[in-house]
């Protein structure tokens, strides 16, 4: 598949947050801070690139030849936890304050649907993507997620200042906002045939 098509589809048409409903919980619980949202998106992208890279080889040379694809889920989730523990450990070891800031997010995202979800989406049809397409897709999908995350961060800021009905305050109004975003993005389908 054309690389540009993959990128466009992953970010706009089949956005993982808006059409596949991944990582909504993390989006709702985000602090109203652009920097922290960017950090969240960045760490998800980094983790996923590593995980998908390893997964590609495991799937191709281990699971498929042995026809034990049903093992996929267990391997994926264990890898996610393992790799995130390793990265967290390495980050903590460095003396850089920057890296230490990232470690707060690991506990949130390891068991969030976004990481496992993008993993499953990449390998949905076994190995439909080759390695390069795999990496491009992972980056685009997480970029799309970060985009929505940033937009929601900005909007939540304003939402706190508006008058919302008592029952709608907090999660319901955020959900409706995400729904409207999803509606807006739906207008972009059909641009690429």
């Amino acid at each position: 598949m054309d690389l540009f098509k993959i990128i466009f589809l992953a970010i706009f048409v089949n956005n993982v947050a808006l059409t596949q409903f991944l990582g909504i919980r993390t989006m709702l619980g985000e602090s109203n801070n652009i920097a922290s949202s960017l950090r969240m998106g960045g760490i998800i992208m980094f983790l996923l690139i590593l995980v998908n890279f390893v997964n590609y080889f495991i799937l191709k040379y281990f699971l498929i030849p042995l026809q034990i694809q049903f093992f996929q889920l267990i391997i994926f989730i264990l890898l996610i936890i393992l790799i995130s523990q390793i990265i967290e450990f390495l980050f903590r070891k460095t003396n850089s304050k920057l890296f230490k800031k990232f470690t707060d997010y690991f506990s949130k995202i390891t068991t969030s649907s976004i990481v496992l979800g993008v993993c499953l989406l990449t390998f949905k049809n076994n190995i439909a993507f080759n390695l390069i397409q795999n990496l491009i897709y992972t980056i685009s999908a997480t970029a799309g997620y970060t985009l929505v995350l940033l937009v929601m961060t900005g909007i939540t800021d304003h939402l706190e200042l508006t008058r919302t009905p008592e029952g709608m305050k907090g999660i319901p109004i955020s959900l409706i906002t995400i729904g409207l975003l999803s509606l807006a993005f739906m207008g972009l389908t059909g641009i690429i045939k």
Partner: protein
Amino acid sequence: MGELQNFSKGILKENPVFIMVLGICPALAVTTSLINAIGMGIATTFVLIFSNLVISVMKNLIPDKIRTIIFVFITAVFVTIADLLMKSIFPEINKALGIYIPLIVVNSIILSRTEILANKNKIIPTFFDSLGMGIGFTLALMIMGSIREILGNGSICNYVFVGENTRTILVFILPPGAFIVYAYMIALLKKSLNNNAQ
């Protein structure tokens, strides 16, 4: 806490989907039709009950430091089992649910229940709590599923009851509709529970 209360709180007062707002992902993704919602609910309840039972039985063999990995591992095994069982008995529903069955592993309901409950309690309370939570989850999904399917598709359980050319309110079947229905259900239920409390 009496067992009955343990069981019933999962259905209404601490409904995982509408009150505690856990398990958002399947609630939005899978509720495009009532049958899919029921299928997902049953699968999640199955995984919830069995993995919690196993963990509750083995809780003294699980060292504290690695408990997350072990919990996730056990849950993943049961999700795979549920997936295999579904593929053999209800392959159509399995295909319709797609990637959301493996995503049961990271369903916040299971993770939080395991952490809070199975880790500390004996088997019987664990069983009833999980059963209650599972049924509450399934019921919540069924409600959302029926609303979305009736309004968005003019059908119930894939049986179309409107005329051939009736225009249904499509947005409910599409992703935006999921968010909107969910938001209103949360608001409604929270409000009515608050009213009851006062």
